[in-house]
């Protein structure tokens, strides 16, 4: 049954990708394919990265409602970015190469998130509501701090930041794309190697210890991977809060398996289908100018509400 579902997911992803590349193409094929191919690659990469980060976060927190963005991961990324622009000035900031900036950002985010969330996870994450509230408060705090600093800086610096603070699926930097693809690929390989350990880590607080999987170290390693994935997706397109949740709940529905060897690839496929398919329908079929982020956030938000309400009633 699983094999058939994987086959269908792969087929759907292929179909939407081909349609995305070819539907309504005008003018030179070479240019269209190159231009759209880049966009397709970035959508697939981002969809995969966000979905993977979400599944990983849900695995180490043992619940299926929290996501890195609900817990304020991408708000933290933006705060770090803002502080860097504030510290360096727009001149200094734009002089640094994008690649260096990206790695600087990634390094700081990894350190900050591992420190912060490891602390948060340490005293038992069993109280879900407390975790959700803490995360939402942290997110609001990071966002307010960012906007406070943004008020302090001058307009030209603000313009640099603004382009980084909104989700945008249409313009993606080609330099960053290649670098991000490399990073995400390496992360996926590492995760594939540790997939069995992830199955054990998801079992709760006690059983991983009993089975010799050292959950504390596992959580730290996984938090590091989550930081990389979130940095990549936020650097490329900006914050998307609910896409991960939408994809992860779809994945658990479609793939009734505990094994991360099944769940992670399926989530990557579904993440790709959601973004590419969504963009295809919005742009090519409905001819709408509505940004995809708005639609995905709306759907994902509804899923979040549904999950919270259902959890509350049982």
């Amino acid at each position, binding site marked *: 049954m699983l094999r058939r579902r994987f086959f269908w997911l792969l087929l759907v992803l292929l179909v939407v990708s081909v349609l995305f590349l070819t539907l309504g193409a005008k003018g030179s094929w070479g240019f269209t394919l190159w231009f759209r191919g880049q966009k397709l690659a970035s959508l697939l990469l981002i969809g995969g990265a966000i979905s993977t980060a979400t599944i990983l976060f849900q695995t180490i927190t*043992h619940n299926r409602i929290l996501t890195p963005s609900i817990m304020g991961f991408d708000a933290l990324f933006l705060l770090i970015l803002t502080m860097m622009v504030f510290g360096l000035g727009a001149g200094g900031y734009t002089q640094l190469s994008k690649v260096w900036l990206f790695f600087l950002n990634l390094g700081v985010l990894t350190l900050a998130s591992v420190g912060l969330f490891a602390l948060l996870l340490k005293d038992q994450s069993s109280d879900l509501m407390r975790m959700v509230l803490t995360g939402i408060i942290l997110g609001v705090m990071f966002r307010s701090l960012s906007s406070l600093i943004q008020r302090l800086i001058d307009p030209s610096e603000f313009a640099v930041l603004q382009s980084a603070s909104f989700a945008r699926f249409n313009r993606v930097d080609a330099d960053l794309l290649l670098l991000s693809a490399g990073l995400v690929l390496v992360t996926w390989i590492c995760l594939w190697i540790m*997939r*069995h*350990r992830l*199955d*054990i880590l998801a*079992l*709760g*607080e*006690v*059983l991983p*210890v*009993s*089975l*010799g*999987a*050292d959950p504390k170290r596992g959580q730290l390693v996984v938090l590091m991977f989550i930081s990389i994935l979130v940095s990549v997706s936020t650097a490329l397109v900006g914050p998307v809060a609910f896409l991960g949740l939408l994809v992860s709940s779809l994945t*658990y529905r479609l793939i*009734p*398996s*505990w*094994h991360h060897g099944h769940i992670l690839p399926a989530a990557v496929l579904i993440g790709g289908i959601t973004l590419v398919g969504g963009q295809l329908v919005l742009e090519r079929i409905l001819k709408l100018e509505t940004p995809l982020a708005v639609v995905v956030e709306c759907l994902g938000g509804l899923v979040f509400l549904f999950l919270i309400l259902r959890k509350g009633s049982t």
Partner: protein
Amino acid sequence: MIRIRNLSHQIAGHDILRNVDLDISKGGLTALVGPNGAGKSTLLSLVARLAATQSGGIEINGLDLKKISHGDLAQLLAILPQVLTSTHRISVQDLVGFGRYPYSHGRLTPKDRQVIEQVLASFELEGIRHRFLDTLSGGQRQRAYTAMAWAQDTEYLLLDEPLNNLDIAASRSLMARLKRLAEQERRTIVIVLHDINYAAGYADHIVAMKAGEIVEAGAPEAIVTEAFLSRVFDTEAQVTHVAGRPLVVV
């Protein structure tokens, strides 16, 4: 053998364990009994290294618990916590397979598969091996988790109140199975029990705790008396004997 010396533990400034000295010898079923808040679960969690020891020491087979690696400990000792999640979408067979993680880290070898088959048979789980945990009854689920811990093939198995939420049939069959398997495979089981009658009926040794201290230890026939119940549990209950075993009239 598990040797606990001078073990004290505090949580948020409260004494949970006070200078506990206890030897648990190899083989058989040892029951930890005592009123709520006596420190039974804490003692178990310290032995399984779920929390770090604050003062005092624990040795397992002569090895200092602090110095055993995670991997080695998982081949020596397994623990099953009191609360087991019921919503996991894991099949019974996969769950039992997780018990082999300390040996093969997820890539099951032919020997692992053989052990899994044996354990599924000993715990009578063959009929429901493909069912998911969230579709099982409380008794079946407890049996599946216990089977997972059993598949870990450890010398010591610690169980924290496994009879919680089980009806009388499931409780009796689980205890009888554990006693039989412990004897057959010469394993040591330490089990926290709420109901003194199950301890008296199935355990080889009883260790009674109260307010963080060991108050009595010995064979059930020797220690379960009316005076014992009043001293440990602060309750006046009559004790009779059936088939050579003490029985508390509740």
